Every structure is written in structure tokens, then in C-alpha cells.
């Protein structure tokens, strides 16, 4: 490998601020997107509590349902829902970048890759809702 001769003089290295992600909107959006993973964990914890209550009997499950109706839990779930949807939208929109799908030699346009994702989202949601609600 070739090499380079340089004697760089003293230089100034700026320290990145701890709050760099507040500086520009795209960075803040990025951090919020990453923090959506906390909502995922919150959902998992809640689901495991629900399974546990379900296993222990009808009374315990009613207590769990009452807990879900508490304002604090409701607001937590509302915020989490917002973040999860944010996660879903950013995830589906970025998917085309990660996949350079080529058909007949031409790259499939981003929109065509993103569209099936949204369709799958819709189908999965309807399926889950139907299974849960049909009984």
C-alpha cells in the first residue's frame, strides 16, 4: 500500500457535545427512533405480566385488566404506541436502502420496496385483530 509523508501541525479537535443530538433535527429524530426500542421492551414486559396473570386464574387476570386501566399505565401505553408506530414507519422507509433489489437488471425503485412492507403491516395487523376479536 502506498504511504503519505505529512507532518501535520498542532490542530484543534473539537469535543463533541454530550447533547450533540439536540443540535440538529435529523439527529434528534435518530435518537428518538433508537429510543423507541424502550417501548418495545415495555411492551414485552407488559405482555409477560399478562401471560402470567392469565396463567394464575380469572381473578388475577381481572386485577391485571384493572391495572391496565390506571391512568399512568394508559398514558405509558399511549406514548409507547406513538413510538412503536414511529419505529415501524422509519423501519419500513429505510428498508429500501438496505436492499438493492434488482429485477431484470434494473434497480427496483424505493417506493416499490417500501409498499409491500406497508401492505404486510396491514395484513399482519388485520390478522392479529381478527384472531383476538373473533372469539
Amino acid at each position, binding site marked *: 500500500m502506498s504511504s503519505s509523508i505529512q507532518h501535520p501541525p498542532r490542530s484543534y479537535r473539537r469535543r463533541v457535545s454530550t447533547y450533540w443530538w439536540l443540535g440538529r433535527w435529523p439527529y434528534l429524530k435518530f435518537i428518538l427512533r433508537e429510543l423507541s426500542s424502550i417501548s*418495545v421492551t415495555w411492551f414485552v414486559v407488559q405482555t409477560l405480566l399478562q401471560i402470567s396473570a392469565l396463567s394464575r386464574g380469572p381473578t388475577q387476570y381481572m386485577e391485571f*385488566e384493572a391495572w391496565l386501566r390506571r391512568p399512568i399505565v394508559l398514558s405509558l401505553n399511549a406514548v409507547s404506541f406513538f413510538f412503536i408506530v414511529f419505529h415501524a414507519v422509519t423501519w419500513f422507509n429505510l428498508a429500501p436502502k438496505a436492499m438493492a433489489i434488482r429485477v431484470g437488471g434494473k434497480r427496483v425503485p424505493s417506493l416499490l420496496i417500501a409498499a409491500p412492507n406497508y401492505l404486510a403491516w396491514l395484513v399482519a395487523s388485520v390478522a392479529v385483530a381478527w384472531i383476538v376479536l373473533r372469539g
Partner: protein
Amino acid sequence: MGKRSNEPFLWMLFSAGGVAAALLIPIHLFLFGLAFPLGWLEAPGYDTLLALARHPVTRLYLFVLCSLGLFHWAHRFRYTLYDGLQIKHLNEIINTLCYGGAILGTVVAAYLILRIP
């Protein structure tokens, strides 16, 4: 240039978790976290739910969703701590916390799901 990292495996779990979370969690959270407690929709009864939950396919589904969701969180949260708080030098503690948490959560999930009567 150093050893081949195990990042591909972690990234795979993260991605699978990301897909599962994006496709499935919104409807779950909407139904159980908002629509039923607020009375927008009528919640299914205890017996119905228990019948649904004890079905082997549901058990597997719930296990996969919970476990992948946790590994998705572990990966993202680890990098958010690295970058957002600039504490990459604590990476060993962070990794243990995140992936350890995900493994522990997976074990708990398996236990709870198997215990459904």
C-alpha cells in the same frame, strides 16, 4: 485486522426483532394497551384468551415476539448509550447489561409461556 466479530449474529437478531416489532407490536399495543382498557372495543373474555394462549402456535408466536423484541432493544439501546451519552469506554458493562437483559428476559418468557396451563 483483529478477529471476525460476532456482530453479524447480533445484527441479525436486531433486524429480525425490528421487523417483528414493526409489523406486530402496533396492533397488539393498540388492542390490549388502549382499545380494550378504554372501552373502544369489547375485550375478549378470560376463557377465550386462555384458550388462545395455550395453543402451541400462540405459545411459539409469543415467545418469538418477546425474545426478538428484547434483542432488538438490546442492540439499539447499547448503541444509544454509546453515542447518546458518549460512554463507549464502558462497553463491557453496557454489553452485559443489554444482551444479558435480553437473555434473562428470554428465559423468563420461556418459563412463563411454558407454564400456561
